[in-house]
């Protein structure tokens, strides 16, 4: 069995094996019969340990032989430490403070480790007079003692953990908690140092670290958290006070493990997880009032005023029936205000919507937070909690002998980790990081290596929508997004990496369908309709929580789709007021809110995919985009790509369209299945690329971009128009980066730029073509008016001025008359709508 790996030579306890219990090889599933958690409520009868026999007897025998052969008996000091009397209740009572090094610091109770503290875990072999004679006769058996019902040897476990603390180094750590720590030094020793400085006696331990360091220790931690964590506590405190003997802490350091890999999803919880350490993700939906929970009851005799303290044991108080002083029966009364209480809070969490299978309602789980974890989370928070899963049988009713054969389950929370907290500050890698299996990554990479991956993905996008290849390509690039660049050092802040797209076109060209598809595809998508949403619904609003009377900031669609895509249908029907909030979001990617005493700036790094209908319900090819959709050009210029979705009206197209639609209606189940798989692959592909790939511009690519931009500027300059602005250059960069992401390439190369150019030109050709001249004129989008239109406007103004001057000094002029005259004067003006 596992001997503690690489024990330092100087140590006394050389090779003491852990007792090989039947389940020690199997870190995940202890037998489900193991029911220590619910052995309460059997009345006042303290249950004798009835069951460990099978667990312990058999391993005990081989154990002993090894012990006998061991030449060195353990020193008295060691035996003392691992004495069950100390370890059994390490944190329960003040007088239980172990060791001298921890001197004055009181141990704080850990209700999070359960009310079963005094369960028969102290029963080591040696203490058991009846059962195992072999061990009982062995006085120096201390080394091989294990906590009852487990295979945890306190001494070994402690030593292992101390070694872990002293040696564990994680050079690749990216957690923000570890910011400022030297990654090449033992991580947790630095944290202890931090504790000595800050004085917050909580040590958070990442279980994954424990696992990588010592898998056996990890298994014990997961399977027997109730026993192992107090042991860890002790180990830490010893180490701490050895190192910082002078530091003063409020109470002893408590170890809070997190990130246990046991369970990620509430739906997977099953009876086997009871009493194990689990980590769950979810959303807080309710928190209760603070509940004072009695830890120690204070009784006083009404006759002689003799007082007695009784510790609460598994939610029960054994009320002393007889006063020990005066021997009166039933004279003891409870004195509430001298009893000891601890804080407790009930929290309900609900499955996160992402984890849920379709068509089912989310599950909820009750959670108890204790002491300083109370009020750590608020309803609506996304959290990862680590705790011990418990099941308690429904209580026997005093007047009833029947029991409901149902257990109540809850989790005693040990550690909270808000997953959405970080999103306010920076990029959330942790919460979003989907775990990809090796196989999956391999398939994705294979797919990426194909030369036509770009076309493939584009055609996998919304297969029910026919054609519009370029639009799909644009949306594909939007899904991937550009690379995030941080220029906050130079004062410009973050650059927008998201690609915004506007689709406009005739009604019934499946714009909405496309939006719906995208919304269903991305994990953090929001879908709103311009008609139905207000500025408030898009941004955020402040409301008073009816229960707490607190002001609460409720976030709207744009904030909710941070790092996702916000699909806005009927963009044109949105009120100007509402649209104005989009200005900030679409360029600065933030949302500023100043209302009801809350002033803040929220991140809204969302890509916007909008769809708009032309004002006249049919697209008028004789008008410009601006005139057709009547959107302010300030907003339009923030879209990287503006596509027109028009009915091409061409026979070949019709034929293909018909084929496509008809096949939609008769395709078999299998084919549908295939398609579905495609969507899953596409999802993963995008998620993978978004998390792991961040392409940078190569030298040639930058040259190509510069050329492209200069070319774009040149086109217009000949005719006195500006055909490109720096914003277009930025768009090009983003698109090129996104295209590189599609190829899983860390470098933006010339082909990416070529495609970006092509797509951009394609979109421009559609949307920024001046219907009067047939030239592409970017100023239609940037200023709302084409250069020719502006020229004409100037001409008219000139002509009008001339006319008025020619009329001489007349006090008033008839408008109609003037118009007539003007018309007569100039032929060109007739068609102009500027008047």
């Amino acid at each position, binding site marked *: 069995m596992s001997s503690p790996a690489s024990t330092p030579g100087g140590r006394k306890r050389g090779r003491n094996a852990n007792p090989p219990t039947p389940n020690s090889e199997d870190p995940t599933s202890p037998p489900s019969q193991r029911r220590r958690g619910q052995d309460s409520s059997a009345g006042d009868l303290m249950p004798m340990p009835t069951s460990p026999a099978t667990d312990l007897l058999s391993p005990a025998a081989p154990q002993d032989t090894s012990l006998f052969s061991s030449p060195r008996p353990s020193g008295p000091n060691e035996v003392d430490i691992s004495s069950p009397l100390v370890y059994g209740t390490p944190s329960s009572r003040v007088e239980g403070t172990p060791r001298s090094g921890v001197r004055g610091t009181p141990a704080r109770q850990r209700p999070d480790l359960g009310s079963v503290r005094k369960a028969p875990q102290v029963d080591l072999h040696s203490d058991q007079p009846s059962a195992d004679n072999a061990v009982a006769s062995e006085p120096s058996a201390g080394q091989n003692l294990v906590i009852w019902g487990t295979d945890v040897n306190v001494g070994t476990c402690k030593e292992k953990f101390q070694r872990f603390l002293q040696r564990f180094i994680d050079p690749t750590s990216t957690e923000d908690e570890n910011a400022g720590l030297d990654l090449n030094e033992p991580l947790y020793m630095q944290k202890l140092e931090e504790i000595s400085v800050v004085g917050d006696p909580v040590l958070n331990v990442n279980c994954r670290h424990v696992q990588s360091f010592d898998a056996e220790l990890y298994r014990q931690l997961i399977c027997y958290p109730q026993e192992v964590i107090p042991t860890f506590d002790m180990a830490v405190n010893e180490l701490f006070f050895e190192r910082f003997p002078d530091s003063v802490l409020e109470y002893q350091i408590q170890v809070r493990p997190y990130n246990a890999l046991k369970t990620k999803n509430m739906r997977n919880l099953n009876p086997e997880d009871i009493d194990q350490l689990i980590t769950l993700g979810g959303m807080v939906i309710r928190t209760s009032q603070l509940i004072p929970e009695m830890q120690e009851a204070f009784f006083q005799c009404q006759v002689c005023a003799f007082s007695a303290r009784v510790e609460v044991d598994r939610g029960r108080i054994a009320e002393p029936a007889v006063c020990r002083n005066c021997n009166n029966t039933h004279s003891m009364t409870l004195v509430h205000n001298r009893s000891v209480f601890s804080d407790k809070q009930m929290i309900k969490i609900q499955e996160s919507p992402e984890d849920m299978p379709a068509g089912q309602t989310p599950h909820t789980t009750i959670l108890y937070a204790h002491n300083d974890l109370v009020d750590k989370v608020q309803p609506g928070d996304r959290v990862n909690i680590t705790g011990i899963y418990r099941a308690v049988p429904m209580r026997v009713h005093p007047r009833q002998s029947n029991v409901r*054969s149902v*257990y109540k389950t809850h989790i005693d929370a040990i550690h909270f980790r808000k997953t959405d907290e970080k999103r306010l500050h920076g990029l959330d890698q942790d919460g979003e990081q989907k775990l990809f299996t090796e196989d999956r990554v391999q398939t994705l990479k294979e797919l990426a290596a194909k030369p036509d991956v770009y076309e493939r993905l584009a055609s996998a996008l919304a297969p029910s929508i026919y054609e519009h290849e370029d639009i799909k390509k644009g949306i594909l690039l939007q899904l991937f997004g550009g690379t995030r660049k941080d220029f906050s050092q130079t004062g410009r802040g973050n650059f927008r990496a998201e690609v915004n797209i506007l689709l406009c076109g005739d009604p019934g060209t499946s714009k909405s369908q496309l939006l*719906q598809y995208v919304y269903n595809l991305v994990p953090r998508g929001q879908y709103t309709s311009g008609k139905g949403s207000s500025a408030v619904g898009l941004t955020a609003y402040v409301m008073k929580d009816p229960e707490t009377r607190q002001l609460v900031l409720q976030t709207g669609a744009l904030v909710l789709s941070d790092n996702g895509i916000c699909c806005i249908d009927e963009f044109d029907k949105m009120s100007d007021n509402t649209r104005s909030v989009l200005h900030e979001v679409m360029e600065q990617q933030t949302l500023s809110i100043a209302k009801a005493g809350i002033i803040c700036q929220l991140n809204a790094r969302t890509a916007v995919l909008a769809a708009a209908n032309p004002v006249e319900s049919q697209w008028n090819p004789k008008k410009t985009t601006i005139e057709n959709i009547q959107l302010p050009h300030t907003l339009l210029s923030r879209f990287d790509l503006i596509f027109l979705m028009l009915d091409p009206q061409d026979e070949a197209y019709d034929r293909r369209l018909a084929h496509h*639609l008809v096949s939609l209606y008769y395709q078999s189940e299998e084919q549908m299945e295939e398609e579905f798989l495609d969507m899953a692959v596409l999802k993963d592909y995008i998620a993978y690329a978004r998390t792991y790939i961040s392409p940078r511009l190569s030298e040639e690519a930058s040259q190509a971009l510069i050329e492209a931009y200069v070319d774009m500027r040149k086109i217009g300059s000949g005719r006195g128009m500006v055909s490109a602005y720096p914003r277009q250059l930025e768009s090009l960069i983003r698109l090129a980066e996104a295209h590189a992401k599609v190829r899983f390439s860390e470098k933006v190369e010339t082909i990416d730029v070529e495609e970006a150019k092509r797509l951009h030109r394609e979109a421009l050709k559609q949307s920024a073509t001046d219907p009067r001249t047939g030239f592409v004129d970017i100023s239609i989008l940037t200023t709302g008016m084409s250069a020719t239109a502006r020229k004409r406007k100037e001409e008219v103004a000139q002509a009008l001025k001339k006319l008025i001057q020619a009329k001489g000094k007349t006090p008033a002029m008839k408008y109609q008359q003037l118009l007539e005259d003007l018309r007569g004067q100039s032929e060109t003006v007739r068609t102009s709508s500027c008047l």
Partner: protein
Amino acid sequence: MLSTQDWIHAPLGVVEEKFAAAQKGSSPGWEAEVVEFFKEQLKEKSAQSLVPSLNDVPLHYLKPNSLVKFRCFIQDMFDPEFYMGVYETVDGPTDAKMLHCGKYRDVAECGVDFNSKNTVTAERQTFYCVPIPGENLWVKDGYAGSSQARVVASTSYVPSRQKRSYEEDEDMDTQPQKQAHAGLQGPTDLQSNADCKRQETEAPPTQAASASHLDLNFPLPGERGPACLVKVYEDWESFKLNDALEVFGILSVSPALSALAEERDASSSFLDPTEGMETAEEQRVHSPPASLVPRLHVLHAKPLQHNNPLLPHATSDDNGAFLSSTVAEMASVRAELLAYFTHVLLGDGLAAEFLLLHLLSSVYSRRDALPLGKFTLNLSGLPAASYSERLYQILQQLVPCSWYLAMSLQNMNQTRLRPRKDYTANRLVSGSLQLAQNTSLFLDETRLEPGQLDATGVCNVTALGNVITWQKVDYDFNYHQMEFPCNINVLIASEGRSLLPSDCRVHLEAQVTPAHLEEYLSSIQAFPQTSSQLNRFRIYLSVARLLDYSISDQMTKYVEEDFVEMRKDDPQGVSADDLHRMLVVARLLCLSLGQNHLSRDGWLRAKHMEMLRRSRMEQHQTVNGNEP
């Protein structure tokens, strides 16, 4: 038939037997065996009808711990619960230990040894089920009738009008004279008997509900019937919210369950940190008194493909024969039904055709976000307001489940259409759009008057729009929305063009002069319709919906060609949407004729119907001028 009685009256005995056998070490798979046993017993339709149904027998006439069936709709899913699958009891004086099986029970025996190592914890899931919302009277009667005819001899139901305690109930199992009486009842009496029985079924819960202020959370207002906590032991992942099911299970109405809840409040929970934490509301919702909301431990559950009592179950053997016999006469029934609809729709044959197709439509699959097969019909140009109501009453007679929503301002602003999660009580508060699949939703827009829609109203209209276009309802989970797909046939009755989107709009052209309208309307109801004719219609509508359908390659080509031609002729007027619609119409048309593939004839007919409809629309466009 002694064995039959046994497994119906004391199913737990069967379970125990198997459990005991397993304990002796003979078969480890006893749990599967139990399930298999009941599945086997229930294979026969006759056996199924022997089991009393919670839907039509009042709860207090049912024997506790007996096998019952329940036709229900999953309204909410509670959290899974852990229970003692196997536990050991210690008998006080003798100290004898005994193993018990905790499966299919709520309450354990006395003297449970919690420290026993033999305890096995298992998991089960609880669904909150209500009768299928919007189920029409004829469906209820049909089920009740079919079960009554054969069941009386074996149920504990005795048509005496007194309430009795459960103990008495057991004694009165056999009452020969009453049974004889019931057995002699002819089919004519059946209806009335079922009627009064239903009233009885409904009366006690409602009275009790009003007394205890317990909201049973029915999706539709005015619904009645028992709600039930259904405990599922096997593959509960396969069940979805809003599924319609028929469950066979062991009824548990132990008063201990309710006592537990009631007395909890009385006894101080001060020293009891684990209980008393749930709010009173949650307590009330999750463990309501068993007399109001019985528990049902599922032995066998099957999803209902249709809710038509006149059709055999999809699983039974005679299904195929039944289908082929009905398909054969489908064309003639169709003609009859069409004539009937034409009459009802004031002589408008085209509208009748579309109405018929609409009643057959069903979402048969989804592509991306797009539901295929839905066919929302907007009947515009309806005459007097009372007409739409009458129309609904007629449809009610034909479809198994339906609901009438008068879109009055008040209704739109006040009713809750979308279900909402109530975190205080931890349950899904139902909304009117939480409907089982293939429920007909009749939206009466003629009731709409000018006025202001408030926030709720706007939400409701959006929700209706979503149902129509995407066939989905966004449930409100307070912190987020969750999308649930649905399959609801929406029929909009309006005067002008509806404010809601629709797949197809038909303007009604009444052949009856307004002068005679009143008279005509009153005669609609009296239109001669024998119950056998009605039943034929009902069977027809359900069967046509269940038929398979395919399009051959040849037809695909043909349709493509045709579409291209159409576009050539009228590039502006024909769009992809039109092709979508025509494909759906053609599909429904073929199904309505009992054909399971697209025929050239069907396609041409669909095209022709579309053309007629369009030309009629254009006519009205020019007349009204307010069309888009």
